C-alpha cells in the first residue's frame, strides 16, 4: 500500500515542481532542482536519525529487530544521500559556476556518505557478530548530521543557509513552499515504503538462515 502511494505521490510531486511551481526571479529554471534536492536531504536526515535511535535501542536491549531497522534505514538513507550529492553539483554548476567546492557543508555531507558506506560494508562483511560494532559506528557517524545542518549557519559557506528548516520559519513564498512540502512528504513516504519492505526482507532472510539448508 505504501509503495503504491509513493509511486503515485513522487511523479505528482515532480510534475507540480516542473509545471506548477513559479519560476524563481534570481536563478530562473535551475532553482527547480530544489524540489528534489531538499526533499532528499530531509529524508536522508530522517533515515540516519532512525538508524541512530535504533542503534542506541539495540545497544541497550540487544534485540535483533532494532539492528535490522538500523541497517535498513541506513541503507535507504545512503540512497537518498547519494541523490543529494549528485543533484547538488548539477544545481551548483549553473548557479555557482562550479560542480563542486570544498565548502564546509558539501565536505561534511561527503564525509557522511563515506561514514555510512563504511557502516554498510561493516554490516555486510561482519555478519551478526558485527552488530554491536555497527551500532557504535552509526551512533558516532550520526554526529555528522547536525554538523552538516549547522555548518551553513555557523561558518561562511558558498552553500546557502537553510530556507525551510530554520528557527524563524520557512523563507520561501507560499506557492513554492506548498510544492516543496508535498515533495518532502512524497519522499518520506517512499522512504517508509522502502523501509517496510527492507526490514521484512531482513527478518525473512534471518529466519531462512536459522532454519538451515
Amino acid at each position, binding site marked *: 500500500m505504501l*509503495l503504491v502511494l509513493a509511486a503515485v505521490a*513522487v511523479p505528482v510531486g*515532480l510534475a507540480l515542481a*516542473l509545471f506548477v511551481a513559479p519560476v524563481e526571479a534570481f536563478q530562473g*529554471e*535551475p532553482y*527547480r*532542482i530544489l524540489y*528534489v*534536492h531538499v526533499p*532528499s536531504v530531509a529524508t536522508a536526515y530522517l533515515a540516519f536519525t532512525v538508524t541512530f535511535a535504533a542503534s542506541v535501542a539495540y545497544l541497550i536491549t540487544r534485540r535483533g529487530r532494532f539492528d535490522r531497522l538500523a541497517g535498513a534505514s541506513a541503507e*535507504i538513507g545512503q*540512497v537518498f544521500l*547519494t*541523490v543529494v550529492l*549528485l*543533484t547538488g553539483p*548539477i*544545481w551548483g*554548476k*549553473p548557479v555557482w559556476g562550479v560542480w563542486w567546492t570544498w565548502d564546509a557543508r558539501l565536505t561534511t555531507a561527503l564525509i557522511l556518505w563515506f561514514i555510512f558506506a563504511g557502516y554498510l560494508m561493516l554490516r555486510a562483511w561482519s555478519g551478526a557478530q558485527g552488530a554491536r560494532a555497527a551500532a557504535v559506528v552509526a551512533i558516532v557517524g550520526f554526529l555528522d548530521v547536525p554538523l552538516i545542518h549547522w555548518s551553513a549557519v555557523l561558518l561562511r559557506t558558498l552553500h546557502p543557509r537553510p530556507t525551510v528548516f530554520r528557527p524563524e520559519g520557512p523563507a520561501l513564498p507560499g506557492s513554492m513552499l506548498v510544492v516543496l512540502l508535498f515533495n518532502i512528504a512524497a519522499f518520506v513516504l*517512499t522512504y517508509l515504503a*522502502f523501509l517496510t*519492505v*527492507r526490514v521484512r*526482507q531482513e527478518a*525473512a*532472510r534471518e529466519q*531462512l538462515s536459522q532454519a538451515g*539448508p
Partner: protein
Amino acid sequence: MTYVAAAYLVTVGILGAYALSLWLRQRSLRRPRGDGR
C-alpha cells in the same frame, strides 16, 4: 532546463534502481529452495 532534467533523471533513476533491487531481493527470497543436492 537541461540541468533540471538531469537532476530529475538522476533522482528518478537512483530511486527506481533501488526499488528494482528490492524487488529482485524479494523475488530471490520467495524462490522455493531446492533439497540441497
